[in-house]
């Protein structure tokens, strides 16, 4: 298991290198000038040139790339061009809200989507099934910011059950945290709920036709045990896979959700960074999310072994 883990980590190196080169080139070929973002629109060309010089933006691309990669190899992700702060520190400040948002959304998803999917598969073809499918298709079809606005309009502005915006860290108390993260979490979860309930349903439908489910029924077991113990565990792997690949989708959701609910997270940081051409910051965030994506999918692969004893990694 450990060697498998290490081997997979090793395999991630070329992937991450590809990401690094790709992102670096993409950004440097982009028009736009970080110096302008620092100096503002009334700056003269001379002033801009001086800033570019001091930032090393006038060096040849190869030099810039090697410097960046070299520093990164030593754990130095560089400083933001715009704010002149260490990139890692800036990311650190914004990580908390994003992780909290993602985890809350994921928890909501699992709590809502799994029972939905199981129920739909169980009552396959019935009203419940149709309803679940309708909800999930709608979840796919409505943009996340519209969902966000509707949630705010109904639950925050009209009913005043939740605050309209903002974020409180868990350290400020579970109450305020939960109060503020609920709506954004739900908005972000919406598309995920759609995705996972569908996948759960499809996977369950497949599993429910398996011989061992028939065996379980032939044994006269209660339906709950048949569904959740016998079927769901076998249906888990495709669901886990979707959770992993859906992570990228969640990131785009995070960007929009953070904007709508004014949550100071990574999503907003990266949009700002792209618009300001803050190269080291963008590169670091993209590498970080890519790395997280690779890691999450690796963990999910490993978790297959937990749900299915037949899978052994060497």
């Amino acid at each position: 298991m450990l060697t498998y883990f290490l081997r997979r980590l090793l395999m991630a190196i070329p992937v991450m290198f590809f990401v690094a080169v790709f992102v670096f080139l993409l950004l440097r070929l982009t028009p736009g000038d970080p110096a302008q973002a620092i100096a503002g629109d009334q700056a003269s060309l001379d002033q801009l040139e001086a800033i570019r010089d001091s930032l090393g933006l006038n060096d040849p691309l190869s030099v810039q790339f090697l410097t960046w990669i070299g520093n990164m190899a030593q754990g130095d992700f560089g400083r933001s061009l715009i704010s002149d702060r260490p990139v890692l520190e800036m990311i650190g400040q914004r990580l908390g809200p994003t992780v909290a948002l993602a985890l809350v959304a994921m928890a909501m998803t699992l709590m809502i989507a799994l029972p939905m999917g199981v129920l739909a598969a169980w009552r396959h073809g019935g009203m419940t099934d149709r309803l679940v499918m309708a909800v999930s298709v709608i979840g796919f079809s409505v943009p996340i910011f519209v969902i966000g606005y509707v949630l705010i309009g109904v639950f925050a502005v009209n009913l005043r059950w939740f605050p309209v915006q903002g974020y409180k860290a868990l350290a400020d108390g579970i109450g305020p945290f939960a109060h503020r993260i609920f709506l954004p979490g739900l908005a972000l979860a919406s598309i995920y709920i759609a995705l996972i309930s569908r996948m759960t349903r499809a996977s369950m439908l497949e599993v429910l036709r398996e011989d061992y489910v028939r065996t379980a029924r032939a044994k006269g077991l209660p339906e709950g045990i048949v569904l959740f113990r016998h079927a769901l565990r076998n249906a888990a792997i495709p669901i886990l896979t979707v959770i992993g690949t859906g992570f990228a989708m969640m990131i785009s959701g995070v960007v929009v959700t953070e904007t709508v609910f004014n949550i100071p997270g990574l999503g907003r940081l990266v949009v700002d960074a792209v618009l300001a051409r803050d190269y080291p910051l963008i590169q670091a965030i993209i590498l970080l999310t890519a790395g997280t994506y690779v890691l999450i999918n690796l963990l999910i692969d490993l978790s297959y072994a937990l749900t299915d004893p037949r899978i052994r990694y060497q």
Partner: protein
Amino acid sequence: MTFHSLKTLGLAAMLAGTVALPAWAETTLTAVMQAPLRSLDPHLSTAQIVRTHGFMVFETLLGMDEDYQPQPQMADYVVSDDMLTYTLTLRDGLMWHDGTPVTAEDCVASLMRWSQRDGSAQTMMEYVDSIEATSDSELVIHMKSPFGPVLELLAKPSPIPAFMMPKRLADTPVGEQIPEIIGSGPFKFVADEYRPGDQAVYVKNEDYVPREEPASWTAGAKVVNVDRVVWQAMPDMQTSINAIQSGDVDLIEQVTIDLLPLLAMNEEVETGILNPLGAQVTGRFNHRLPPFDDPQIRKAVMYALDQETIMQTAIGNSEYYQLCPSIYGCEVPLASDVGAEYLEGSAEDRMAKAQELLAASDYDGTPVLMMQPTDLTVLTTQPIVAAERMREAGFAVEVASMDWSTLQSRKNGWQPVDEGGWNFFFTYWGVAGIWNPLVHSLINGSGDDNTWAGWPVNARMEELRADYLTAGTLDEQKEIAEEIQQIAWDDSFYFNAGEFKSVAAWRTELQDIQSGPITLFWGVDK
């Protein structure tokens, strides 16, 4: 113990907590600023938010009062009769935030750094012989020849005010940002709580000694009545409005005017204009590229575009915009009506004139590339409205949408359109950035590569701009300024699309909010 009694106990504890808190709670003013604060060096950036940040932490030697007059702030001044020697004496009790005293040497270093960054300061330095510290508290500026606006420049709030900082910071090379935010101003910057692009926190500088004179803009006493000021960035105006209504924030620096009705019914929120200067929207031609290298064609555009439509579409409520021909702003001392003929008559008449002019010109139907920023709300509408009018006049117009950052860098190049050049775009200027020919970037007629995008060439304009610097009296200045305005219109340097005011909103708990050329956080009480 039963569950019920546990609950009661908890409730009691909670009540006790809420009662106990206000006794020693500090007052925090939370403000949503017009833009997020991303960089901190006030010498490096011309962005308004950085300027506002600068006035929190730093001070200028002179302040500017509401009559546009330089007044002593960190220093009192004496000007020699021959206008060649300016002696500035630092007032007592000035301390940097790191605890060291403010010295004249610090100020000389700061002035040197500032003068490398600021455009008009660079012009001034051509007249300056030396700047030296003659003692710990006295510095002297010797001029080679008389230069009118020295005091004005030291006091000006825009685009780069002459902020003072410790020498060790002021010695930071020109292109680099200062490593620490240490000033002598009424607020201290809390570096630990700074989240670039999201939040900036300032605490009251307990050691700050305000001046005696009453506060007026950046001059006079800066008395701080709140313990903390928190700037919060909100990318979405709707969110900001919801937040001020729920009391999450106390102040919104700039409310989208269309949304004011949402706040009108709320008695806890007041709205008003804090910055009386406002901002001017300008449409800039690229004088180096066809078709706008032809003054006749530029003039057709001047007639075609309509201040009213542009302002109405962008701002909506006529209470908050003004139409006037003045290129210096509608309400400043140099404001004038010269050149108004381009704005006179009905929009239809002017359109007819534009069509006529264009038909008579050599315009060959080449599409005009109009840059439009997608992510800067105040400037997204003008290109659309302008494009409609220009098309009506007979132009082919292509609106190229891009983010503001791309637009800013693209505007600096003058290569042909198909290689990434441009013909026309809109931007806006705080009136403090255009209120006289010295600071005004758009009227530079030298055509130098280094000048602000557009590169018009006009020799007479250059003569007038030089004359203005040495003009002695206000009348003389006014006369020159008017001629400049006439040329700017006649030669169609750029289109002045009118002036708008930013409307701020604040909760009624806030009292004594100061007005100023930037948003000021002293004087206000919560």
